[in-house]
Protein backbone atom coordinates (compact mmCIF):
# COMPACT_ATOMS: atom_id res chain seq x y z
CA UNK A 1 0.00 0.00 0.00
CA UNK A 2 2.81 2.39 0.88
CA UNK A 3 4.35 2.07 -2.62
CA UNK A 4 1.03 3.29 -4.04
CA UNK A 5 1.05 6.35 -1.81
CA UNK A 6 4.70 7.02 -2.66
CA UNK A 7 3.89 6.75 -6.38
CA UNK A 8 0.98 9.18 -6.08
CA UNK A 9 3.12 11.57 -4.00
CA UNK A 10 5.81 11.61 -6.70
CA UNK A 11 3.21 12.28 -9.39
CA UNK A 12 1.71 15.19 -7.41
CA UNK A 13 5.19 16.65 -6.76
CA UNK A 14 6.17 16.52 -10.44
CA UNK A 15 2.85 18.12 -11.46
CA UNK A 16 3.36 20.97 -9.00
CA UNK A 17 6.95 21.63 -10.09
CA UNK A 18 5.93 21.69 -13.75
CA UNK A 19 2.93 23.98 -13.07
CA UNK A 20 5.31 26.32 -11.26
CA UNK A 21 8.14 26.22 -13.83
CA UNK A 22 5.84 26.85 -16.77
CA UNK A 23 5.07 30.30 -15.35
CA UNK A 24 8.70 31.43 -15.69
CA UNK A 25 8.91 33.06 -19.17
CA UNK A 26 12.43 31.78 -19.97
CA UNK A 27 11.42 28.19 -19.19
CA UNK A 28 8.21 28.63 -21.20
CA UNK A 29 10.10 29.84 -24.29
CA UNK A 30 12.57 26.94 -24.18
CA UNK A 31 9.62 24.54 -23.80
CA UNK A 32 7.83 26.18 -26.71
CA UNK A 33 10.98 26.04 -28.85
CA UNK A 34 11.07 22.28 -28.18
CA UNK A 35 8.16 21.95 -30.60
CA UNK A 36 10.54 22.62 -33.50
CA UNK A 37 12.84 19.81 -32.33
CA UNK A 38 14.08 17.79 -35.33
CA UNK A 39 12.23 14.48 -35.11
CA UNK A 40 15.41 12.59 -35.91
CA UNK A 41 16.49 13.18 -32.28
CA UNK A 42 13.45 11.18 -31.25
CA UNK A 43 14.37 8.49 -33.76
CA UNK A 44 17.82 8.32 -32.18
CA UNK A 45 16.27 8.02 -28.70
CA UNK A 46 14.12 5.08 -29.91
CA UNK A 47 17.17 3.41 -31.51
CA UNK A 48 19.19 3.67 -28.28
CA UNK A 49 16.32 2.69 -25.97
CA UNK A 50 15.79 -0.53 -27.93
CA UNK A 51 19.43 -1.47 -28.52
CA UNK A 52 20.63 -0.98 -24.91
CA UNK A 53 18.13 -3.31 -23.13
CA UNK A 54 18.77 -5.97 -25.81
CA UNK A 55 22.51 -5.86 -25.11
CA UNK A 56 22.22 -5.45 -21.32
CA UNK A 57 18.95 -7.20 -20.33
CA UNK A 58 17.23 -6.11 -17.07
CA UNK A 59 15.03 -9.27 -17.03
CA UNK A 60 11.97 -7.50 -15.54
CA UNK A 61 9.25 -10.03 -14.47
CA UNK A 62 6.25 -10.48 -16.77
CA UNK A 63 2.74 -10.83 -15.18
CA UNK A 64 0.49 -13.36 -17.04
CA UNK A 65 -3.06 -12.11 -17.66
CA UNK A 66 -6.24 -14.18 -17.32
CA UNK A 67 -6.83 -14.52 -21.09
CA UNK A 68 -3.26 -15.76 -21.63
CA UNK A 69 -3.75 -18.38 -18.92
CA UNK A 70 -6.94 -19.54 -20.62
CA UNK A 71 -4.96 -19.96 -23.87
CA UNK A 72 -2.48 -22.17 -21.98
CA UNK A 73 -5.24 -24.18 -20.25
CA UNK A 74 -7.10 -24.93 -23.50
CA UNK A 75 -4.00 -26.68 -24.83
CA UNK A 76 -3.26 -28.23 -21.44
CA UNK A 77 -6.69 -29.89 -21.47
CA UNK A 78 -5.92 -31.84 -24.66
CA UNK A 79 -5.16 -35.56 -24.43
CA UNK A 80 -2.43 -37.50 -26.26
CA UNK A 81 -3.48 -38.40 -29.79
CA UNK A 82 -6.02 -35.57 -30.14
CA UNK A 83 -5.84 -33.74 -33.46
CA UNK A 84 -5.43 -29.95 -33.49
CA UNK A 85 -5.56 -27.51 -36.42
CA UNK A 86 -2.77 -24.91 -36.27
CA UNK A 87 -3.54 -22.10 -38.70
CA UNK A 88 -0.58 -19.70 -39.10
CA UNK A 89 -2.26 -16.71 -40.81
CA UNK A 90 0.57 -14.17 -40.81
CA UNK A 91 3.68 -13.13 -42.69
CA UNK A 92 7.15 -11.87 -41.72
CA UNK A 93 5.80 -8.37 -41.07
CA UNK A 94 4.25 -9.73 -37.83
CA UNK A 95 7.10 -12.20 -37.20
CA UNK A 96 8.57 -10.72 -34.00
CA UNK A 97 5.19 -10.91 -32.23
CA UNK A 98 3.83 -14.16 -33.66
CA UNK A 99 6.80 -16.48 -34.32
CA UNK A 100 7.52 -16.81 -30.54
CA UNK A 101 3.83 -17.68 -29.95
CA UNK A 102 3.90 -20.21 -32.79
CA UNK A 103 7.00 -21.97 -31.46
CA UNK A 104 5.79 -22.03 -27.85
CA UNK A 105 2.36 -23.32 -28.94
CA UNK A 106 3.94 -26.14 -30.99
CA UNK A 107 6.15 -26.95 -28.01
CA UNK A 108 3.20 -27.19 -25.61
CA UNK A 109 1.25 -29.28 -28.14
CA UNK A 110 4.23 -31.62 -28.55
CA UNK A 111 4.58 -31.97 -24.77
CA UNK A 112 0.93 -33.13 -24.70
CA UNK A 113 1.71 -35.55 -27.61
CA UNK A 114 -1.07 -33.93 -29.64
CA UNK A 115 -1.09 -34.45 -33.43
CA UNK A 116 -0.92 -31.17 -35.38
CA UNK A 117 -2.34 -30.29 -38.82
CA UNK A 118 -0.79 -26.97 -39.90
CA UNK A 119 -1.98 -24.62 -42.66
CA UNK A 120 -1.59 -20.97 -43.73
CA UNK A 121 -4.15 -18.58 -45.19
CA UNK A 122 -1.45 -15.95 -45.89
CA UNK A 123 0.95 -16.47 -48.81
CA UNK A 124 3.88 -15.19 -46.70
CA UNK A 125 3.31 -17.84 -43.99
CA UNK A 126 4.40 -21.35 -45.10
CA UNK A 127 8.19 -20.96 -44.70
CA UNK A 128 7.71 -19.54 -41.17
CA UNK A 129 5.40 -22.44 -40.26
CA UNK A 130 7.84 -24.97 -41.75
CA UNK A 131 10.81 -23.44 -39.90
CA UNK A 132 8.88 -23.54 -36.60
CA UNK A 133 7.70 -27.14 -37.21
CA UNK A 134 11.17 -28.44 -38.02
CA UNK A 135 12.91 -26.55 -35.20
CA UNK A 136 10.43 -27.56 -32.45
CA UNK A 137 8.32 -30.56 -33.51
CA UNK A 138 10.79 -32.48 -35.66
CA UNK A 139 14.18 -31.70 -34.08
CA UNK A 140 13.33 -31.36 -30.36
CA UNK A 141 10.33 -33.68 -29.98
CA UNK A 142 11.14 -36.09 -32.87
CA UNK A 143 7.67 -35.81 -34.36
CA UNK A 144 7.34 -37.84 -37.57
CA UNK A 145 6.13 -35.89 -40.60
CA UNK A 146 2.91 -37.34 -41.99
CA UNK A 147 2.04 -39.22 -38.79
CA UNK A 148 2.38 -36.72 -35.92
CA UNK A 149 2.29 -33.46 -37.83
CA UNK A 150 1.48 -32.21 -41.32
CA UNK A 151 2.13 -28.86 -43.02
CA UNK A 152 -0.60 -28.29 -45.63
CA UNK A 153 0.98 -24.97 -46.72
CA UNK A 154 -0.88 -22.01 -48.23
CA UNK A 155 -4.37 -21.78 -49.77
CA UNK A 156 -5.80 -18.59 -51.33
CA UNK A 157 -9.49 -17.71 -50.85
CA UNK A 158 -9.69 -16.36 -47.28
CA UNK A 159 -13.22 -17.03 -45.87
CA UNK A 160 -13.98 -19.43 -48.73
CA UNK A 161 -11.12 -21.70 -47.61
CA UNK A 162 -12.42 -21.73 -44.02
CA UNK A 163 -15.88 -22.80 -45.23
CA UNK A 164 -14.40 -25.41 -47.55
CA UNK A 165 -12.33 -26.82 -44.66
CA UNK A 166 -15.51 -26.99 -42.60
CA UNK A 167 -16.85 -29.48 -45.12
CA UNK A 168 -13.65 -31.34 -46.02
CA UNK A 169 -10.04 -30.56 -45.16
CA UNK A 170 -8.46 -33.14 -47.56
CA UNK A 171 -10.82 -31.84 -50.27
CA UNK A 172 -9.58 -28.26 -49.76
CA UNK A 173 -5.91 -29.26 -49.51
CA UNK A 174 -5.41 -32.05 -52.09
CA UNK A 175 -1.64 -31.90 -51.52
CA UNK A 176 0.58 -30.73 -48.68
CA UNK A 177 3.26 -28.06 -48.50
CA UNK A 178 5.70 -30.18 -50.55
CA UNK A 179 3.17 -31.26 -53.13
CA UNK A 180 2.80 -34.83 -51.78
CA UNK A 181 -0.82 -35.97 -52.21
CA UNK A 182 -2.74 -35.95 -48.91
CA UNK A 183 -3.78 -39.59 -49.41
CA UNK A 184 -0.18 -40.64 -48.72
CA UNK A 185 -0.16 -38.98 -45.27
CA UNK A 186 -1.54 -41.34 -42.55
CA UNK A 187 -2.52 -38.49 -40.23
CA UNK A 188 -4.76 -36.96 -42.89
CA UNK A 189 -6.69 -40.22 -43.02
CA UNK A 190 -8.07 -39.37 -39.58
CA UNK A 191 -8.95 -35.77 -40.49
CA UNK A 192 -12.27 -35.35 -42.35
CA UNK A 193 -13.37 -31.76 -41.61
CA UNK A 194 -13.35 -29.10 -38.88
CA UNK A 195 -15.65 -31.24 -36.72
CA UNK A 196 -12.93 -33.88 -36.41
CA UNK A 197 -10.53 -31.29 -34.95
CA UNK A 198 -10.43 -30.84 -31.15
CA UNK A 199 -9.12 -27.24 -31.18
CA UNK A 200 -8.10 -24.49 -33.62
CA UNK A 201 -4.92 -22.68 -32.56
CA UNK A 202 -4.98 -19.56 -34.77
CA UNK A 203 -1.86 -17.40 -34.98
CA UNK A 204 -3.33 -14.33 -36.68
CA UNK A 205 -1.96 -10.97 -37.92
CA UNK A 206 -5.10 -9.45 -39.47
CA UNK A 207 -7.31 -10.32 -42.46
CA UNK A 208 -7.97 -13.18 -43.04
CA UNK A 209 -7.54 -14.26 -39.42
CA UNK A 210 -9.23 -14.88 -36.08
CA UNK A 211 -12.23 -12.61 -36.87
CA UNK A 212 -13.03 -14.56 -40.04
CA UNK A 213 -12.46 -17.97 -38.34
CA UNK A 214 -14.93 -16.91 -35.60
CA UNK A 215 -17.47 -15.62 -38.11
CA UNK A 216 -17.32 -18.53 -40.56
CA UNK A 217 -16.55 -21.62 -38.51
CA UNK A 218 -16.91 -21.21 -34.72
CA UNK A 219 -20.68 -21.57 -34.45
CA UNK A 220 -21.28 -23.56 -37.61
CA UNK A 221 -18.82 -26.37 -36.96
CA UNK A 222 -18.87 -26.08 -33.15
CA UNK A 223 -15.12 -25.37 -33.24
CA UNK A 224 -13.12 -24.42 -30.14
CA UNK A 225 -10.80 -21.52 -31.07
CA UNK A 226 -7.88 -19.89 -29.24
CA UNK A 227 -5.95 -17.03 -30.84
CA UNK A 228 -2.45 -15.63 -30.66
CA UNK A 229 -2.60 -12.30 -32.48
CA UNK A 230 -0.73 -9.07 -33.07
CA UNK A 231 -1.22 -6.33 -30.49
CA UNK A 232 -2.99 -4.19 -33.12
CA UNK A 233 -5.81 -6.70 -33.59
CA UNK A 234 -6.06 -7.78 -29.92
CA UNK A 235 -8.52 -5.10 -28.68
CA UNK A 236 -11.19 -6.16 -31.20
CA UNK A 237 -11.00 -9.84 -30.13
CA UNK A 238 -11.92 -9.07 -26.50
CA UNK A 239 -15.53 -8.86 -27.74
CA UNK A 240 -15.26 -12.51 -28.91
CA UNK A 241 -13.68 -13.53 -25.60
CA UNK A 242 -16.55 -12.01 -23.61
CA UNK A 243 -19.12 -13.76 -25.79
CA UNK A 244 -17.32 -17.11 -25.44
CA UNK A 245 -16.65 -17.41 -29.20
CA UNK A 246 -12.91 -17.26 -28.42
CA UNK A 247 -11.56 -19.30 -25.48
CA UNK A 248 -8.10 -17.72 -25.05
CA UNK A 249 -6.01 -14.85 -26.38
CA UNK A 250 -2.36 -13.85 -26.53
CA UNK A 251 -2.01 -10.14 -27.43
CA UNK A 252 1.23 -9.06 -29.11
CA UNK A 253 4.77 -9.59 -27.85
CA UNK A 254 3.57 -9.10 -24.24
CA UNK A 255 1.14 -12.02 -24.72
CA UNK A 256 3.94 -14.11 -26.22
CA UNK A 257 6.21 -13.33 -23.25
CA UNK A 258 3.47 -14.28 -20.76
CA UNK A 259 2.91 -17.55 -22.62
CA UNK A 260 6.64 -18.27 -22.63
CA UNK A 261 6.73 -17.71 -18.89
CA UNK A 262 3.84 -20.11 -18.31
CA UNK A 263 5.51 -22.69 -20.56
CA UNK A 264 8.76 -22.22 -18.62
CA UNK A 265 10.78 -20.95 -21.60
CA UNK A 266 12.73 -17.68 -22.10
CA UNK A 267 12.34 -17.07 -25.82
CA UNK A 268 12.79 -14.04 -28.08
CA UNK A 269 9.57 -12.42 -26.80
CA UNK A 270 10.65 -12.48 -23.14
CA UNK A 271 14.06 -11.12 -24.11
CA UNK A 272 12.38 -8.27 -25.99
CA UNK A 273 10.12 -7.12 -23.16
CA UNK A 274 12.75 -4.93 -21.47
CA UNK A 275 13.13 -2.90 -24.66
CA UNK A 276 9.31 -2.81 -24.90
CA UNK A 277 9.15 -1.28 -21.42
CA UNK A 278 11.78 1.37 -22.14
CA UNK A 279 10.18 2.53 -25.41
CA UNK A 280 6.72 2.63 -23.82
CA UNK A 281 8.12 4.95 -21.16
CA UNK A 282 9.68 7.06 -23.94
CA UNK A 283 6.37 7.31 -25.82
CA UNK A 284 4.55 8.32 -22.64
CA UNK A 285 7.23 10.92 -21.96
CA UNK A 286 6.87 12.23 -25.53
CA UNK A 287 3.09 12.62 -25.10
CA UNK A 288 3.50 14.56 -21.83
CA UNK A 289 6.45 16.68 -23.04
CA UNK A 290 4.74 17.43 -26.36
CA UNK A 291 1.64 18.70 -24.60
CA UNK A 292 3.76 20.65 -22.13
CA UNK A 293 5.50 22.41 -25.02
CA UNK A 294 2.10 23.12 -26.56
CA UNK A 295 0.69 24.57 -23.30
CA UNK A 296 3.80 26.67 -22.84
CA UNK A 297 3.50 28.05 -26.36
CA UNK A 298 -0.19 28.82 -25.83
CA UNK A 299 0.63 30.64 -22.61
CA UNK A 300 3.03 32.79 -24.61
CA UNK A 301 0.24 33.48 -27.09
CA UNK A 302 1.82 31.59 -30.04
CA UNK A 303 -0.45 29.42 -32.26
Amino acid at each position, binding site marked *: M*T*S*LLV*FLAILAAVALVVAFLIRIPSVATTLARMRRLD*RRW*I*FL*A*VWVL*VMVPLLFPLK*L*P*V*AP*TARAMQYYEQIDRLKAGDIVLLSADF*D*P*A*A*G*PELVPMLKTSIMQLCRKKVRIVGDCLW*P*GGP*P*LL*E*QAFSEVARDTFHYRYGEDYVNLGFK*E*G*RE*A*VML*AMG*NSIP*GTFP*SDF*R*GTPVSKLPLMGKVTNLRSVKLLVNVSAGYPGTKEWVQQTQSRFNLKIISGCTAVSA*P*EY*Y*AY*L*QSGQLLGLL*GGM*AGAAEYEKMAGVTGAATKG*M*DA*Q*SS*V*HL*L*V*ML*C*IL*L*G*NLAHWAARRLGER
Partner: protein
Amino acid sequence: MQRQIPLILTGVIGFVMLLYFFVPHPFISGPGHFFEDAVIIVVAFAIVLGAANLLTFNGEIIARRGKDWPYKVVLLVSMFAMIAIGLVEGERYLEPETVFSWMYNTFYASMQATMFALLAFFIASAAFRAFRIRNLEAGLLAVAALFVMLGRVPIGNVISAHWPNGIQLPQISDWIMENPQNSAKRAILMGAALGVMSTGLRIIMGIEGSFARSGGNS
Protein backbone atom coordinates in the same frame (compact mmCIF):
# COMPACT_ATOMS: atom_id res chain seq x y z
CA MET B 1 -26.17 -7.11 -72.86
CA GLN B 2 -22.51 -7.49 -71.94
CA ARG B 3 -23.28 -5.89 -68.60
CA GLN B 4 -26.65 -7.40 -67.68
CA ILE B 5 -25.69 -11.08 -67.64
CA PRO B 6 -22.64 -10.71 -65.34
CA LEU B 7 -24.76 -8.58 -63.02
CA ILE B 8 -27.50 -11.23 -62.86
CA LEU B 9 -24.80 -13.89 -62.39
CA THR B 10 -23.36 -11.89 -59.44
CA GLY B 11 -26.81 -11.69 -57.87
CA VAL B 12 -27.52 -15.40 -58.37
CA ILE B 13 -24.17 -16.54 -56.94
CA GLY B 14 -24.54 -14.13 -54.01
CA PHE B 15 -28.08 -15.35 -53.36
CA VAL B 16 -27.00 -19.00 -53.47
CA MET B 17 -24.16 -18.31 -51.02
CA LEU B 18 -26.59 -16.41 -48.77
CA LEU B 19 -29.09 -19.33 -48.85
CA TYR B 20 -26.21 -21.83 -48.45
CA PHE B 21 -25.94 -20.57 -44.88
CA PHE B 22 -29.59 -21.30 -44.13
CA VAL B 23 -30.34 -24.35 -46.34
CA PRO B 24 -28.36 -27.55 -45.71
CA HIS B 25 -30.26 -29.39 -48.47
CA PRO B 26 -27.93 -30.50 -51.32
CA PHE B 27 -30.07 -28.53 -53.80
CA ILE B 28 -28.41 -25.39 -52.36
CA SER B 29 -25.34 -26.80 -50.58
CA GLY B 30 -24.22 -28.59 -53.76
CA PRO B 31 -23.76 -25.38 -55.80
CA GLY B 32 -22.55 -23.71 -52.57
CA HIS B 33 -19.64 -26.18 -52.31
CA PHE B 34 -18.82 -25.65 -55.96
CA PHE B 35 -18.73 -21.84 -55.67
CA GLU B 36 -16.55 -22.12 -52.55
CA ASP B 37 -13.95 -24.21 -54.34
CA ALA B 38 -14.26 -22.22 -57.59
CA VAL B 39 -13.83 -18.74 -56.04
CA ILE B 40 -10.56 -19.92 -54.44
CA ILE B 41 -9.10 -20.49 -57.91
CA VAL B 42 -10.46 -17.30 -59.48
CA VAL B 43 -9.04 -15.17 -56.62
CA ALA B 44 -5.66 -16.88 -57.16
CA PHE B 45 -5.74 -15.73 -60.79
CA ALA B 46 -6.66 -12.21 -59.56
CA ILE B 47 -3.38 -12.08 -57.59
CA VAL B 48 -1.45 -13.12 -60.70
CA LEU B 49 -3.33 -10.33 -62.51
CA GLY B 50 -1.97 -7.93 -59.88
CA ALA B 51 1.57 -8.85 -60.93
CA ALA B 52 0.55 -8.34 -64.59
CA ASN B 53 -0.70 -4.85 -63.65
CA LEU B 54 2.71 -4.15 -62.10
CA LEU B 55 4.34 -5.31 -65.32
CA THR B 56 2.29 -3.02 -67.60
CA PHE B 57 2.44 -0.05 -65.19
CA ASN B 58 6.20 -0.18 -64.67
CA GLY B 59 6.94 -1.39 -68.20
CA GLU B 60 5.30 1.75 -69.55
CA ILE B 61 7.43 3.97 -67.27
CA ILE B 62 10.60 2.21 -68.42
CA ALA B 63 9.54 2.52 -72.07
CA ARG B 64 9.25 6.31 -71.83
CA ARG B 65 12.25 6.56 -69.42
CA GLY B 66 9.93 8.10 -66.80
CA LYS B 67 10.96 9.14 -63.27
CA ASP B 68 13.14 6.54 -61.44
CA TRP B 69 12.92 4.16 -64.37
CA PRO B 70 16.18 2.32 -63.44
CA TYR B 71 14.54 1.32 -60.17
CA LYS B 72 11.53 0.03 -62.10
CA VAL B 73 13.90 -2.17 -64.10
CA VAL B 74 15.21 -3.61 -60.81
CA LEU B 75 11.60 -4.23 -59.76
CA LEU B 76 10.69 -6.19 -62.91
CA VAL B 77 13.96 -8.11 -63.05
CA SER B 78 13.59 -9.24 -59.43
CA MET B 79 9.95 -10.22 -60.07
CA PHE B 80 10.83 -12.38 -63.08
CA ALA B 81 13.84 -13.85 -61.26
CA MET B 82 11.57 -14.98 -58.42
CA ILE B 83 9.06 -16.48 -60.87
CA ALA B 84 11.78 -18.25 -62.88
CA ILE B 85 13.42 -19.77 -59.78
CA GLY B 86 10.01 -20.86 -58.47
CA LEU B 87 9.10 -22.60 -61.73
CA VAL B 88 12.49 -24.28 -62.12
CA GLU B 89 12.47 -25.70 -58.60
CA GLY B 90 9.04 -27.26 -59.06
CA GLU B 91 6.54 -28.30 -56.41
CA ARG B 92 9.18 -28.60 -53.65
CA TYR B 93 10.17 -24.94 -54.14
CA LEU B 94 9.56 -23.99 -50.50
CA GLU B 95 11.82 -26.69 -48.99
CA PRO B 96 14.31 -25.04 -46.57
CA GLU B 97 17.37 -25.75 -48.79
CA THR B 98 16.04 -24.30 -52.08
CA VAL B 99 17.24 -21.03 -53.68
CA PHE B 100 13.59 -19.85 -53.53
CA SER B 101 13.51 -20.18 -49.75
CA TRP B 102 16.88 -18.44 -49.58
CA MET B 103 15.43 -15.53 -51.61
CA TYR B 104 12.37 -15.55 -49.29
CA ASN B 105 14.47 -15.25 -46.14
CA THR B 106 17.05 -12.85 -47.60
CA PHE B 107 14.80 -10.37 -49.41
CA TYR B 108 11.07 -10.86 -48.70
CA ALA B 109 11.09 -11.61 -44.96
CA SER B 110 13.78 -9.06 -44.02
CA MET B 111 12.50 -6.10 -46.02
CA GLN B 112 8.82 -6.57 -45.22
CA ALA B 113 9.56 -6.75 -41.48
CA THR B 114 11.77 -3.64 -41.71
CA MET B 115 9.13 -1.65 -43.59
CA PHE B 116 6.79 -2.23 -40.65
CA ALA B 117 9.50 -1.60 -38.06
CA LEU B 118 9.87 1.97 -39.43
CA LEU B 119 6.48 2.71 -37.92
CA ALA B 120 7.91 2.39 -34.40
CA PHE B 121 9.99 5.52 -35.03
CA PHE B 122 7.06 7.42 -36.52
CA ILE B 123 4.83 6.52 -33.55
CA ALA B 124 7.34 8.02 -31.12
CA SER B 125 7.82 11.24 -33.13
CA ALA B 126 4.05 11.56 -33.66
CA ALA B 127 3.50 11.07 -29.91
CA PHE B 128 5.77 14.05 -29.31
CA ARG B 129 4.77 16.34 -32.15
CA ALA B 130 1.14 15.53 -32.90
CA PHE B 131 -0.52 14.06 -29.79
CA ARG B 132 -2.62 17.07 -28.70
CA ILE B 133 -4.74 16.80 -25.52
CA ARG B 134 -6.97 19.69 -26.53
CA ASN B 135 -10.28 18.62 -24.94
CA LEU B 136 -11.90 16.15 -22.53
CA GLU B 137 -12.23 13.45 -25.22
CA ALA B 138 -8.52 13.54 -26.12
CA GLY B 139 -7.78 13.61 -22.39
CA LEU B 140 -9.78 10.41 -21.81
CA LEU B 141 -7.99 8.82 -24.75
CA ALA B 142 -4.59 9.79 -23.34
CA VAL B 143 -5.38 8.46 -19.84
CA ALA B 144 -6.62 5.12 -21.21
CA ALA B 145 -3.56 4.90 -23.49
CA LEU B 146 -1.15 5.60 -20.61
CA PHE B 147 -2.77 2.98 -18.36
CA VAL B 148 -2.79 0.33 -21.09
CA MET B 149 0.77 1.09 -22.21
CA LEU B 150 2.03 0.90 -18.63
CA GLY B 151 -0.10 -2.09 -17.63
CA ARG B 152 0.97 -4.29 -20.55
CA VAL B 153 4.75 -4.16 -19.96
CA PRO B 154 6.91 -5.53 -17.13
CA ILE B 155 7.85 -2.05 -15.84
CA GLY B 156 4.19 -1.47 -14.93
CA ASN B 157 4.13 -4.82 -13.20
CA VAL B 158 7.25 -3.88 -11.17
CA ILE B 159 5.94 -0.44 -10.17
CA SER B 160 2.60 -1.72 -8.91
CA ALA B 161 3.79 -5.07 -7.52
CA HIS B 162 2.93 -4.12 -3.92
CA TRP B 163 -0.17 -2.12 -4.59
CA PRO B 164 -3.42 -3.47 -3.08
CA ASN B 165 -4.79 -6.32 -5.16
CA GLY B 166 -7.37 -5.26 -7.75
CA ILE B 167 -5.88 -1.88 -8.59
CA GLN B 168 -2.45 -2.94 -9.78
CA LEU B 169 -1.48 -1.54 -13.18
CA PRO B 170 -1.84 -4.82 -15.15
CA GLN B 171 -5.25 -5.34 -13.52
CA ILE B 172 -6.40 -1.79 -14.34
CA SER B 173 -5.32 -2.18 -17.98
CA ASP B 174 -7.10 -5.57 -18.11
CA TRP B 175 -10.28 -4.03 -16.70
CA ILE B 176 -10.14 -1.23 -19.29
CA MET B 177 -9.79 -3.84 -22.05
CA GLU B 178 -12.57 -6.09 -20.76
CA ASN B 179 -15.18 -3.43 -19.97
CA PRO B 180 -15.32 0.11 -21.35
CA GLN B 181 -13.20 -0.79 -24.42
CA ASN B 182 -15.29 -3.89 -25.04
CA SER B 183 -18.72 -2.25 -24.88
CA ALA B 184 -17.74 0.57 -27.28
CA LYS B 185 -15.99 -1.89 -29.62
CA ARG B 186 -19.06 -4.17 -29.64
CA ALA B 187 -21.30 -1.25 -30.73
CA ILE B 188 -18.82 -0.56 -33.55
CA LEU B 189 -18.79 -4.28 -34.52
CA MET B 190 -22.58 -4.36 -34.76
CA GLY B 191 -22.65 -1.14 -36.82
CA ALA B 192 -20.00 -2.51 -39.18
CA ALA B 193 -21.91 -5.81 -39.50
CA LEU B 194 -25.04 -3.90 -40.59
CA GLY B 195 -22.94 -2.00 -43.14
CA VAL B 196 -21.52 -5.20 -44.65
CA MET B 197 -24.96 -6.85 -44.70
CA SER B 198 -26.56 -3.92 -46.56
CA THR B 199 -23.70 -3.81 -49.09
CA GLY B 200 -24.12 -7.56 -49.60
CA LEU B 201 -27.85 -7.14 -50.09
CA ARG B 202 -27.32 -4.43 -52.72
CA ILE B 203 -24.76 -6.59 -54.59
CA ILE B 204 -27.15 -9.59 -54.56
CA MET B 205 -30.02 -7.45 -55.83
CA GLY B 206 -27.85 -5.87 -58.50
CA ILE B 207 -28.32 -2.29 -57.33
CA GLU B 208 -24.76 -1.76 -56.15
CA GLY B 209 -23.32 -1.28 -59.57
CA SER B 210 -23.93 2.20 -60.96
CA PHE B 211 -21.50 3.89 -58.65
CA ALA B 212 -18.71 1.57 -59.61
CA ARG B 213 -19.12 1.98 -63.38
CA SER B 214 -15.97 3.84 -64.29
CA GLY B 215 -16.95 7.27 -65.45
CA GLY B 216 -20.57 6.68 -64.43
CA ASN B 217 -22.26 9.52 -62.56
CA SER B 218 -24.14 8.79 -59.31
